[in-house]
């Protein structure tokens, strides 16, 4: 299951919970008979709960999404392959097409821009996003990634760079094999 699918499911559950609580609140504050809570909700407890919830969320994603560690440890990791990609005038220039990668091999994408800010996004065949980063002109834009699944991947600009940006799609730009 993709992380985005998990986010989608959790968000539906969360939203339904919010509607239920607000619905109940509306019922309780407008009911002629004074409804009492069986517990006391303290503001301090609420503040502590929110702070813990926010921090816990980041800790969970750190533990569950491996690319956070890859980003933190990228300087200490040695990639098996490095692809230097240049972008300019609404075109990607790859060192090879497709860029061949082995499953579970760490690879580094170094992307530079000749003119404006672009995005470098890698998509599965079903359209879901594997990862993306911004490509700023005049800066080194590097990302270390490990592909766990075989297949062809599409590269697309994920940052608006002008009215031509939507055409910046290269199908089968990456081939991941065993």
């Amino acid at each position, binding site marked *: 299951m993709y992380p985005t699918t998990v986010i989608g499911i959790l968000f539906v559950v969360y939203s339904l919970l919010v509607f239920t609580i607000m619905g109940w609140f509306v019922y309780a504050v407008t009911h002629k008979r004074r409804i009492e809570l069986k517990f006391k909700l303290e503001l301090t407890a609420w503040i502590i709960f929110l702070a813990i919830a926010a921090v816990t969320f980041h800790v969970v994603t750190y533990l569950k*999404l491996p690319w956070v560690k890859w980003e*933190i440890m990228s300087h200490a990791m040695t990639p098996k392959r490095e692809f230097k990609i240049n972008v300019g005038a609404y075109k990607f220039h790859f060192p090879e097409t497709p860029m061949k990668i082995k499953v579970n091999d760490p690879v580094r994408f170094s992307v530079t821009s000749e003119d404006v800010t672009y995005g470098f996004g890698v998509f599965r065949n079903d359209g879901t996003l594997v990862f993306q980063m911004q490509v700023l002109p005049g800066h080194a834009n590097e990302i270390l990634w490990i592909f766990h699944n075989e297949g062809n991947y599409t590269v697309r600009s994920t940052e608006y760079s002008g009215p031509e940006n939507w055409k910046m799609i290269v199908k089968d730009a990456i081939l991941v094999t065993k």
Partner: protein
Amino acid sequence: MNLIHKLSNLDKIALRFVVFALLFFGLTIIEGSMMRVELCNVKFLGSEHYFAVLNAHPIVGIFGYGFMLVMGAFYYLIPTLMNKKLFSEKLATINFILMISGVMTVWLSSFFLRYAALYTNYWPLPVLRSPPLSLLVYGAGILLIMVGMLIFCFNLFATIFQKTTDHDKPLLALIISGIGLDGLINLLRRMFGIKEKHHHPPDVPLPVVAIFRGTIDTLLDAVVLGGVAVVFIVYAASILLGKALPHTLIDPLLYKNVYWWGLDLIADGLVLIYVAGTWYLLTMLITKRSIVAENVARAALFIELIVSWNVWSHHLLSDQPQPLLLKFISGELITALELVTTGIAIFCSLATLWKARPLKMTIPLKFMLGGMTGFVIGAVAGIVQADIGVNRVIHNTQWVIGPHAHIMMLLGLSMTLFAGLYMIFPMVTKVELKSQRLADLHFWCNFIGSIGMSMAMGYAGLSGMLRRTLYFGETKYLSHMYVAMFFGMIIAVGYAAMMINIIRSVGVKTLVSLFIRIPTLEK
């Protein structure tokens, strides 16, 4: 006697802002609908025109609708709550003219001159890819808006701090109370067991603290965006004069940091803090009670001063050259604190309503609770994307603009502003709204429409659909876009219901006579 003769100058100023804000909201809906059609793969605008509309949409929505509605409300509320006269009615009128002309100039630069660097304006896109005339006109439009906003800030501060009688509080006391610092001091006093010699009510009422605090962020935002507009004008002029300045004078990463620092203050200044202030005010008016844990609420507004100035990096989580420390501290941790400050505002408002139960479900209360529901959903969607790991797979997707931005704007902000509008409307116009049913229809259409449209966008985003792009020839996300289109139409029905209700209640003649002298009304 016609209604117009019963209105004071202050009422008229407030109403002028409100009328134009609602018209701009209508324009935003039209623009949104045009883009929805395009995203359903119907070639209606064409790609170049589509992005020009996308360029104008947030400017009209945020500054034409959101800010102008807020300005109208606050020009009325601050003098009323502080029991003072508005510092300058003339400045308010200049502010009004600047806002309208600025928004319309930006709209023209997009619609006719095809300026399409979008509101993000990432350097050097505006100067490299825009026709210089369109850049010049866009820059001039943004500058007009920002000057208007600076005048608004000055007029508001001058009203709060002006000394009208000898009994007025000294300036320092008003500033301390105005930023909510007195709340924090009171909490610390209590914590350390220090007793006050004389207990006295706060120098500045809680809703005014929120308005004052939000206006500090608005001022800084106007300085940054106004500065960027000046840069655009200078570059456009240099190109038009044949002596183009090199775009390499400005570093794209530094620019992005400064730009987002300023732009993000809108999210906090306008959306978060102003909305909290409106909740407090409405809650106090509905319950006739002071806010539960008022010192905490005041202290939270003060702490938000530190939070809102340090969260901008969550917009740069996918920028690899951005220092990792900034991503963690500003992008993740301080941003997460917004959950706490928003949570405090919601808790204090709901607890006050709870203590005052049983309450009658009035239209303002209904809209306010709808706004809070939107905030609880939209704020969490924002925290989800402000995470280094999650951002890698949802940045710039429809998720960002759906469950976060549009839920916050259409539900969190708009429902709260509409609550204020329905509450203050009879106070300003001295007439009751004609139809409760139309107000109800507005509520349900806006509530269901906003959630449905934003969720459809969000789930398209989780499936990989990007924002600020087109998918001609692709069918992957069409079903999501059809659903979004359907719910978008429901929002439009709600808007129509509200407008019909307001026009029927006040009358077209009165509304027109706010701007033009009608001879038949003079008699």
